């Protein structure tokens, strides 16, 4: 428990100390909110009715979470290069606890980042339903955060350096984000495209967020929780296993 706590604390300290990182990682979601939210708003209203910003905001919150999560997971490569990983790996404590502490720390940061974007989106005109489902929205935010931090940890355990980083972002993270229904409604899409989206775990996270924040659903909240929860567990297990295999 101490191990988990101290590694969690370390992630938090590092995060809150780098103000530039916090502000920097808010830039992209903010741009999406403004450019897409205002740019596509009128078309959306004509085609479907309702405000696009309300539909978009949960997707952009998820976007902020997944990028922060992936980055904190991938920070292990950083630790490996700057030598700090060795310090933790020679300590008399299980690798699983190290991995869990780090991942929980990263997930906490990503959750926090998601909440900041939620606050910002309120200023761009987002109006969530302030109801009893708000705590469930927090659960979804945390689950998405945990999933992507664990994914980052798993990937970082396989990589020696940052050369493959661009590859991961462009061929894994970006597709996961764009093919998740974060930006568009899933109704009326071509069948193969829809199937593709149904295989993306993030789709369920975003659907869950949308349902709890603006009461619009596609898969249903229970399916969302079930799929997201199980995928997160699986990725955590795979990540722990890969992390325990690291040799320096």
């Amino acid at each position, binding site marked *: 428990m101490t*191990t988990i706590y101290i590694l969690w604390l370390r992630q938090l300290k590092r995060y809150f100390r780098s103000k530039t990182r916090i502000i920097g990682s808010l830039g992209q979601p903010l741009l999406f909110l403004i450019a897409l939210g205002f740019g596509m708003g009128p078309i959306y209203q004509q085609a479907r009715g309702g405000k696009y910003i309300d539909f978009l905001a949960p997707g952009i919150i998820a976007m902020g979470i997944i990028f922060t999560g992936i980055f904190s997971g991938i920070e292990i490569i950083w630790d490996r290069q700057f030598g700090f990983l060795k310090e*933790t790996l020679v300590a008399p404590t299980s690798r699983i606890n190290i991995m869990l502490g780090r991942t929980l720390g990263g997930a906490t940061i990503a959750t926090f980042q998601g909440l900041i974007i939620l606050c910002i989106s309120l200023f761009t005109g987002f109006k969530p339903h302030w109801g009893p489902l708000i705590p469930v929205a927090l659960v979804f935010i945390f689950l998405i955060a945990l999933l992507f931090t664990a994914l980052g940890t798993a990937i970082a355990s396989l990589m020696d350096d940052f050369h493959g980083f661009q590859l991961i972002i462009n061929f894994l993270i970006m597709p996961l984000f764009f093919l998740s229904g974060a930006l568009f409604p899933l109704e009326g899409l071509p069948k193969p495209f829809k199937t593709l989206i149904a295989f993306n775990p993030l789709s369920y996270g975003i659907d869950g967020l949308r349902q709890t924040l603006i009461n619009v659903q596609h898969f249903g909240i229970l399916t969302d929780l079930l799929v997201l929860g199980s995928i997160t567990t699986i990725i955590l297990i795979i990540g722990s296993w890969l992390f325990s295999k690291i*040799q320096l």
Partner: protein
Amino acid sequence: MNHNSIERFMNSAKERNSEFMENISSENSNIIEVSHLIKKFGDITAVDDISFSIRRGDIFAFLGPNGAGKTTTIKMLTTLLKPTSGKILIDGSNPATHQDKIRRSFGIVFQDPSLDDELTALENMEFHGCLYRVPKDIRRQRIEELLKFVELWDRRKDLVKTFSGGMSRRLEVARGLIHHPKILFLDEPTLGLDPQTRNHIWTHITQLNKQENMTVFLTTHYMEEAEKIARTIAIIDHGKIIAQGTSAKLKEQTGAPTLEEAFLKLTGTSIRKESADVLDRMRMGRRLWRRKRG
């Protein structure tokens, strides 16, 4: 029985007990035993069938040119790498099966920096103390003592990224001692330090070796350091141990006046080719960059 006699009784019991314990441990007075250790990376044999043993309380220097297999050996002894074959016993246990027990028994100062730059000196120390489950009061007390000793107590609240190379090294040595290890591994701990800092670090380490009977396993490229500090020396080249003994014995064996000359006679004067992996290149880049900065 009055108070004094109880105390006397307790003391004599303690003495008997410790004699008994010593008898047990003297049966196995070697704290490190390595036999036929081999490590291969693909086709390259980094450590080629080496055997050696280190007595409890010894100061053992492992010398060799770059790329001879020193760091690989240390990594295997400290559970970071699994040997291809061969046997290691540390304090009577096998690193492969008693990982946690062994990890608790040693402290290590790595060849490359291993501090968290974004944390303060105190936080780095606390982190280590927590990982090794040193109880809070003892942890606080030892950290204060150690930081005062390495003269970093005044800077304890500064981020490590503001530290010079020598300060970071001192902090790493202090950190490796928080959990009172039985063995201290030092992989080129004094690389790039000025003579004052080197002297300071070695004085403390030899003092700990005497007081706590802490075994020290060190590698260094400074032969005069090894000659001065180490009681036993092993010279490794191309993954094999080619000579072993006291500094005097090695000099006698080669007929050289100094350890440095004995070392050169044994290992030759040609400069070694080193294969740098990605990590090494990265570190080199970082070192250069740091140097440029300050």
